[in-house]
C-alpha cells in the first residue's frame, strides 16, 4: 500500500504521531457513528475537523490566541474546497480501514454510563446533581492518560465514579462495602477513584504546557 509522502525511513512512532493524529481521530469518530443510530457523512467530519484545526480553532492547543479572541472567527480560514474534501474523504476511509484492522474489527464497547445510573437507583440516591457529577467523572475518565476504559471493566468505573461523586456532592451512601455488591473489590475501587481524582490536576498541567507554548499541535500536524 502506498501513501504519498511517507518513506520507510520514518519510524512507526513518528508516523503515528503526525499522520495518524488527525486521521485516527476522524476515523474513530466516523466508525463509531456509523455503527450507531446517528451516522455522520464524511463531508460533515471533514468540515468539522477543518474548523477545529484551523487558525481560528476554539481549541487552545491549536490556536493559542483563542482565549483572547472576541471577534467572530473568519470563515475563510476553515473553508473546504472540493479538492481538499476529496483528499480528506480518502484519508477518512483509509483511516477507517487501518483502525478497524488494527483493533481486530472488535468495535463492541460496553460503557459504564447507563450502568452507573442503574447503580444509583439501586443505591436509592437518584439525585440529578449526583448523577451529573457521576457522568462528569466518567466522561473525564475517557480523556485520562491512564486508559481507564481499557484497564477496568465498566462496573468498576461506574462504582468508582459514584463513590467519588457522592463524596464531592455530599450525598451519604449506605454503610459498609456496598461496592462489593457490584462485583468491585476495594483495590480496584481505590485505584480508579484516585485516577478520577487526579485527572483535574493532569488537565491543568497540560493546559499550562499549551499556554507556555511548549507543545504546538499545529506544527506537529504540519510536519506530518
Amino acid at each position, binding site marked *: 500500500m502506498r501513501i504519498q509522502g511517507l518513506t520507510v525511513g520514518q519510524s512507526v512512532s513518528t508516523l503515528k504521531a503526525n499522520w495518524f493524529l488527525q486521521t485516527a481521530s476522524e476515523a474513530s469518530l466516523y466508525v*463509531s457513528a456509523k455503527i450507531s443510530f446517528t451516522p455522520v457523512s464524511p463531508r460533515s467530519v471533514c468540515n468539522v475537523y477543518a474548523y477545529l484545526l484551523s487558525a481560528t480553532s476554539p481549541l487552545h*492547543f491549536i490556536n493559542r490566541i483563542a482565549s483572547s479572541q472576541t471577534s467572530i472567527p473568519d470563515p475563510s480560514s476553515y473553508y473546504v474546497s472540493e479538492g481538499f474534501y476529496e483528499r480528506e474523504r480518502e484519508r477518512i476511509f483509509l483511516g477507517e480501514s487501518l483502525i478497524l484492522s488494527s483493533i481486530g474489527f472488535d468495535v*463492541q464497547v460496553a460503557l459504564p454510563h447507563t450502568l452507573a445510573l442503574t447503580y444509583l437507583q439501586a443505591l436509592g440516591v437518584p439525585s440529578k446533581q449526583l448523577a451529573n457529577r457521576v457522568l462528569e467523572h466518567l466522561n473525564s475518565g475517557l480523556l485520562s492518560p491512564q486508559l481507564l476504559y481499557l484497564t477496568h471493566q465498566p462496573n468498576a468505573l461506574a462504582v468508582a465514579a459514584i463513590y467519588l461523586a457522592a463524596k464531592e456532592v455530599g450525598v451519604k451512601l449506605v454503610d459498609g462495602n456496598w461496592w462489593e455488591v457490584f462485583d468491585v473489590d476495594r483495590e480496584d475501587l481505590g485505584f480508579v477513584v484516585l485516577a478520577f481524582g487526579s485527572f483535574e490536576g493532569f488537565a491543568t498541567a497540560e493546559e499550562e504546557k499549551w499556554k507556555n507554548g511548549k507543545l504546538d499541535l499545529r506544527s506537529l500536524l504540519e510536519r506530518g
Partner: protein
Amino acid sequence: MSRIMASVADLEHLANPLITAQQLYSLQDDDRDSAENGRSIRYMQAILTQAAGVLLRLPQEVVAVSLVLLQRFWVEGHGQGHTSADPRVDSWPVCVHS
C-alpha cells in the same frame, strides 16, 4: 446450544476486552523513548475527538465509543516491533514509498 450462545452475547454488553499490563508498559516505554510527548499528544487527540463529537452533535455514547476505539488503536499499534502472540498485530500495514 442456543441458550449458551445467548448468554455469551449478553456478556458482551457488560464486559470489555482489557489490555495486559505488558501492553500498558510498552506504551509508556515508547513514550519515554520518543520525544516524551506521547501522553500529551494522545490527550490532545482525545480532546480533539471529543470536540469534534460535540460539533457533529453526536450523542456522548458515540463519542465515548470512539475514544475507547482510539485508545485500543494506540495500544495495538505499540505492539508493533515487540514479540507478541497476538495475530492482530501482524496485520499492521507497512507503508512503502516506491
